[in-house]
């Protein structure tokens, strides 16, 4: 009963781990071959990368003043985009919640639309909006609004589905309209969730909007593209540092606020 058993052969030689390593390696090599990824080119590219990296170690500090406005624009884009998207998400989330809308046709249609919106990649949206409304922050705002809408509406209807149904009953019994029931019995229960999702999406959008600029959708990303195009890696360094600071500051603030909301 109490004697320690001998390790089996497989256990002794870690057969499982070896087999898995072999499988992963084989898959890696096979997919490199199939997609035509040349690992060698990546290694020679590494030299070039080191070259750029050296240049970036000597940032052009005189460029800093030129980055202020685009950075503010990036934050503004993220803020407006998140705000517009999340406000539009509220009625959709209410209509998608199982405990509020019992009509399966309405709820099914709304959920289908929400699922569809969430499948759209944000970079594709940005490319389309740049084509439609032209280069500039408007394209960025629209992209972020749609992305935020898709994300918040789902998080939000899931939150609504966990609320206490008691107040809904109380308001209905008092002769409230459907809208009043939602406004007075549903939304106060999920208000903190909403703020928390808003901040979380805002964080993601600040990060995303730095990239969107690269596609011509406004903000700091445009400077990134310009400096790289001009081989001014000393300026690229400034843009990268600025982006980094903004993202860290926004993340920290938003995290602290969200913790307080709990």
């Amino acid at each position, binding site marked *: 009963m109490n004697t320690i058993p001998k390790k089996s052969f497989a256990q002794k030689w870690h057969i499982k781990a070896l087999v898995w390593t072999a499988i992963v390696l084989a898959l890696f090599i096979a997919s490199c071959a199939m997609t035509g990824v040349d690992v060698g080119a990546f290694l020679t590219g590494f030299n070039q990368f080191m070259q750029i990296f050296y240049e970036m170690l000597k940032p052009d500090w005189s460029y800093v003043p030129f980055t202020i406005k685009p950075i503010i624009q990036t934050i503004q884009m993220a803020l407006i985009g998140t705000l517009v998207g999340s406000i539009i998400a509220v009625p959709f989330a209410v209509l998608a919640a199982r405990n509020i809308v019992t009509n399966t046709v309405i709820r099914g249609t709304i959920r289908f639309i929400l699922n569809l919106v969430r499948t759209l990649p944000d970079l594709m949206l940005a490319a389309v909006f740049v084509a439609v409304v032209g280069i500039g922050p408007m394209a960025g705002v629209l992209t972020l609004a749609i992305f935020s809408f898709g994300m918040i509406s789902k998080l939000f209807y899931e939150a609504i589905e966990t609320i*206490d149904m*008691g*107040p809904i*009953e*109380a*308001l*209905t*019994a*008092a*002769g*409230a*309209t459907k*809208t*009043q029931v939602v*406004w*007075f*019995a549903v939304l*106060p*229960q999920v*208000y*903190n969730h909403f703020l928390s999702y808003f901040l979380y999406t805002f964080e993601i959008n600040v990060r995303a909007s730095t990239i969107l600029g690269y596609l011509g959708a406004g903000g700091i990303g445009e400077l990134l593209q310009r400096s790289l195009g001009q081989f001014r890696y000393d300026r690229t360094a400034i843009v990268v540092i600025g982006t980094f600071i903004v993202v860290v500051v926004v993340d920290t603030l938003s995290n602290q606020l969200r913790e307080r909301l709990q």
Partner: protein
Amino acid sequence: MQEGTPIIEFNDVNKVYPNGTVGLDNINLTINKGEFVVIVGLSGAGKSTLLRAANRLHDVSSGEILIDGQSIVTAKGKQLREVRRNIAMIFQNFNLVKRSTVEKNILNGRVGYYPTWKTIFGLFSAADKQQAAANLQRVNLGEKLYSRADELSGGQQQRVAIARALMQEPKIMLADEPIASLDPRTTVMVMDDLKKLNEELGITVVVNLHSVSLAKQYASRVVGLRAGKLVYDKQIGDVQDGDFDEIYDGKNQEVKEA
């Protein structure tokens, strides 16, 4: 039987839940203005179903329910909301919005009197805000007006729920086991509050209770349900001590209460 003006009438009311459970089985019951009716019965007898049929939180399967002479079974939209406005309800779990202030919760009882857009912009009249404070004072909780509802004890929350119900200026007050989650001391406060509304404001009160002794103490009339059927109906003066054995299946009702 004393004569009175009917305010709630159940005529041949049946309720079968979608899963086949019989909630109400051919109920005929007339409640008159000013009565304090206590409905007793085992858990699952249909007490909650009966109350929720009266303000149509549940639809019935057949039969007619008249509130002050007007059918609530066929009422729709605005008409239904106006009938509901006259019927306040309080619940076992209080059903307050816990994150909102006491004042907001009390004003929630008034929304049926306003167009939707006005309430959404928070445009309650000064008179209604004063009334909210006055109703809170009526249940002796005046100093809690600006507290958050979840800071209050269970008994206090139930009294806030009564203040909210009073905002409706109801003719009828339905209470579904209002004291089931309260301790004995707050139980007395809540029951006394209901008794006062009945005597001072003339509101017709219908209360579901588990406890036969409380029923005898507060009711002007006791109605018994068993398996969805109305099996007992007497004015308080006619109630005999052995009466409840039938409602409670011959079991000792004080054990049932525990």
